[in-house]
């Protein structure tokens, strides 16, 4: 037994984040922690690291009992965490980052050489190919994460808690991460693995603990369960299917036609979307999918080619103009590009239309309230209060607010860029249902997704991009993961 939580309860004003949760982490296992957003996973991690003190309960690490664990004692006991936001300094080298705050010194001078040697040792142990002298800012997210892991290992972490480590990664990077987890396990490190991705949980984890609404539902052996049962445990209700059926609503009318479009890193793109159709864009990160969306939405300017919407050629120079044409973009990075975090939910929902519904520059607050309430109800944003700042919402609810903002503009084409990244299962299927209702309503959807299952589950047709060009097109009947990966990655 490496770590034992006994009857942990953590209360915040008005909410019980953890209610009498007990949990054993065996030495050397990979233990999955799953649950919808708001289930209490983050609070549980923070309890283990000593970042917060529980109101009741005790924590036992390697037989040593703590009622209030501090971050320092947790670290000394060998608990390390890989957070979603990395604690890395872009301007420093890999080796310097690994030894940040613990630099190896000769007198007053930092011993670069020794740190590089030590870093290289760890990389060699786990078969990671990173140059310790490289600047961290030059690494991809996948490699940066490996540096984070190496940093934890160099601090002698024996229990590594990984908080949705695969969320920001591409498929290939995720595979590299999985290999890393296997190696860590083989070297005797215990791992707590938090993820919304069911496939990797079944692949990597020995046991699974399900949390729901701050309570532990169950801890089960992975071999004793399956996907459907697990999802049912998480949401507390049966999800009949992850990808809800939709009526065949594809019309013959072409809504958007793109001819030979180039610029912003994409080249010679041709595509058509009909009303009522979901067109999926698959490809690796950096293949040019987001870049294509940026061209269509007026974020960046094209260098050649044409875009025709409703039969009229358009050339938006600003998102504002694109919105005027009836295009909406739900961007990939919710916090950085989507949400106005310090603004209220109402303000976020209305920000793209307040100008239109203003009279003589003066806001129509009644109309704003009406619209906000309408979309809050229509897409079931869970909040008691529209005057709440959006940063206080869970990821899934934030995403719904952003979608509400776009629905309020009454678009005819909605571009979704990784619409369900980092969102729990329940909210995911609600967003899928929402996409369905959009196309059934005669709108067209362009959906960028790095989750193969999602893009295959939701699209009527898939275009695959690689290095800024379209390399393949598949109709729904021909969807096949390997074919798509082939188009996405090979020459």
């Amino acid at each position, binding site marked *: 037994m490496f770590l034992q939580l006994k009857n942990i309860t953590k209360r915040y004003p008005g909410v019980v984040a953890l209610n009498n949760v007990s949990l054993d982490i065996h030495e050397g296992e990979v233990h999955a922690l799953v649950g919808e957003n708001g289930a209490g996973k983050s609070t549980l991690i923070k309890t283990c690291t000593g*970042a917060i003190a529980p109101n009741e309960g005790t924590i036992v690490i390697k037989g040593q009992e703590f009622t209030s664990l501090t971050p320092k004692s947790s670290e000394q006991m060998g608990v390390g965490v890989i957070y979603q936001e990395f604690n890395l300094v872009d301007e420093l080298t890999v080796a310097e980052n690994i030894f940040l705050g613990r630099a190896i010194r000769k007198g007053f001078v930092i011993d670069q050489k020794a740190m590089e040697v030590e870093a290289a040792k760890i990389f060699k142990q786990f078969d990671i190919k990173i140059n310790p002298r490289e600047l961290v800012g030059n690494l991809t997210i996948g490699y940066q994460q490996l540096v984070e892991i190496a940093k934890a290992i160099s601090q002698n972490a024996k229990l590594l808690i990984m908080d949705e480590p695969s969320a920001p990664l591409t498929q290939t990077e995720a595979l590299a991460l999985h290999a890393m987890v296997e190696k860590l396990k083989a070297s005797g490190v215990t791992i707590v693995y938090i993820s919304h991705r069911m496939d990797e949980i079944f692949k990597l984890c020995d046991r699974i603990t399900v949390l729901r609404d701050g309570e532990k539902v169950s801890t089960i052996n992975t071999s004793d369960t399956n996907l459907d049962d697990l999802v049912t445990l998480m949401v507390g209700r049966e999800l009949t299917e992850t990808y809800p059926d939709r009526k065949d609503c594809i019309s013959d009318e072409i809504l958007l036609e793109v001819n030979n479009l180039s610029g912003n890193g994409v080249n010679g793109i041709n595509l058509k979307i009909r009303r009522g159709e979901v067109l999926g864009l698959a490809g690796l990160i950096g293949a040019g999918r987001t870049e294509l969306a940026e061209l269509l939405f007026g974020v960046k300017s094209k260098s050649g080619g044409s875009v025709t919407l409703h039969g009229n050629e358009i050339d938006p120079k*600003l*998102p504002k103009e694109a919105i005027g044409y009836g295009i909406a973009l739900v961007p990939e990075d919710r916090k950085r590009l989507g949400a*106005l975090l310090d603004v209220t939910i109402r303000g976020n929902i209305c*920000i793209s239309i307040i100008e239109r519904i203003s009279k003589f520059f003066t806001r129509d607050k009644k109309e704003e309230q009406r619209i906000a309430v309408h979309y809050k109800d229509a897409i079931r944003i869970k909040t008691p209060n529209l005057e709440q700042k959006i940063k206080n919402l869970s990821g899934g609810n934030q995403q719904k607010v952003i979608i509400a*903002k776009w629905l309020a503009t009454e678009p005819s084409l909605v571009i979704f860029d990784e619409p369900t990244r980092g969102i729990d299962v329940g909210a995911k299927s609600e967003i899928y249902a929402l996409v369905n209702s959009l196309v059934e309503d005669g709108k067209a959807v362009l959906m960028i997704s790095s989750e193969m299952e999602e893009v295959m589950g939701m699209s009527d047709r898939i275009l695959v991009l690689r290095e800024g060009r379209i390399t393949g097109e598949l109709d729904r009947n021909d969807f096949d993961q390997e074919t798509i990966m082939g188009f996405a990655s090979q020459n």
Partner: protein
Amino acid sequence: MDNSDTLNGAGKLASKYAKQFGIYIVLLALLVFFSIASENFLVSSNLLNVARQVSMMGIAAVGFSFVLLLGGIDLSVGSVITLVNIVAAYFMVNLGMPPFLAVIIALALSAALGFSNGWIIANINMPPIIVTLAMMIIIEGIAYLISGGLPIYGFAKSFAVIGQGYVGPIPIPVIIMVVIMGLGGFILNKTYFGRYFYAVGGNEEAAKLSGIDVKRVKYLVYTLSGFFAGVAGIVILSRTNSGQVLSGKGFEFDVLTACVLGGVSVTGGVGKISNVLAGVLILGVLSNGLVLLDISQFVQMVIKGTVLMLAVALDCLQNRKES
């Protein structure tokens, strides 16, 4: 939500109100203190005097707080005041223009200077602190070139009304300040572009993707900053009755202090005009009260600096607790 081991519900509510009205509590405390410490303080003529003294700062603070809301800064405010002083004075005295026309031209000039700041910041992507610093030096130079460094005086009597007149017992500069502060509050809360200031200051990229023309917002905000500085410049000119090259020197730092005291975040996205007014009044009451207590100007500087430091420190500590 992780802050609240020690804060129960009531405590949280109290801290919320403290955050919302804290600045007024400070102001009230100062008023009480000076009322007790000096018998000359709590007299209506003195209080109106304080209001008149701060009115120029209050007028300029409206535009300045817009700029801060955007996450920018406008170091050229003081120099715009100086130039408006010199230009309006020059037009009236040396060119014999009627005051009305001279004021209009000077205000148009101040707006144009503000617009130039905004245009450069939005299109060349230069940091606002550098753009407005360069602008400040340029404008100051021009003011010296026009005036030769000498004061310009001898205006028509009617012009003095703006800075020295009264409506009933209320000084006209105070009325102008109240009107402009009201206008500022209206812009921020009631107009759509006022909401854009918060959106752009909070997250420029997300604001742009939400369909806000960020460049136009920047033009507007810096233009307003220049324009309101111009209004303050006219009031100062009318009060002092002579155009001087030092009339606006360092004014931007007083205005910045008032805005920050009033809780406007220098990183953008957070702030309210009503609290800026409190910030302005605190500075005014401090100056006036300390003078009444016969405290030397140098000690006053030490006290004002300390107050600023404490106010911002409190704010930062509160934010740290929240996150």
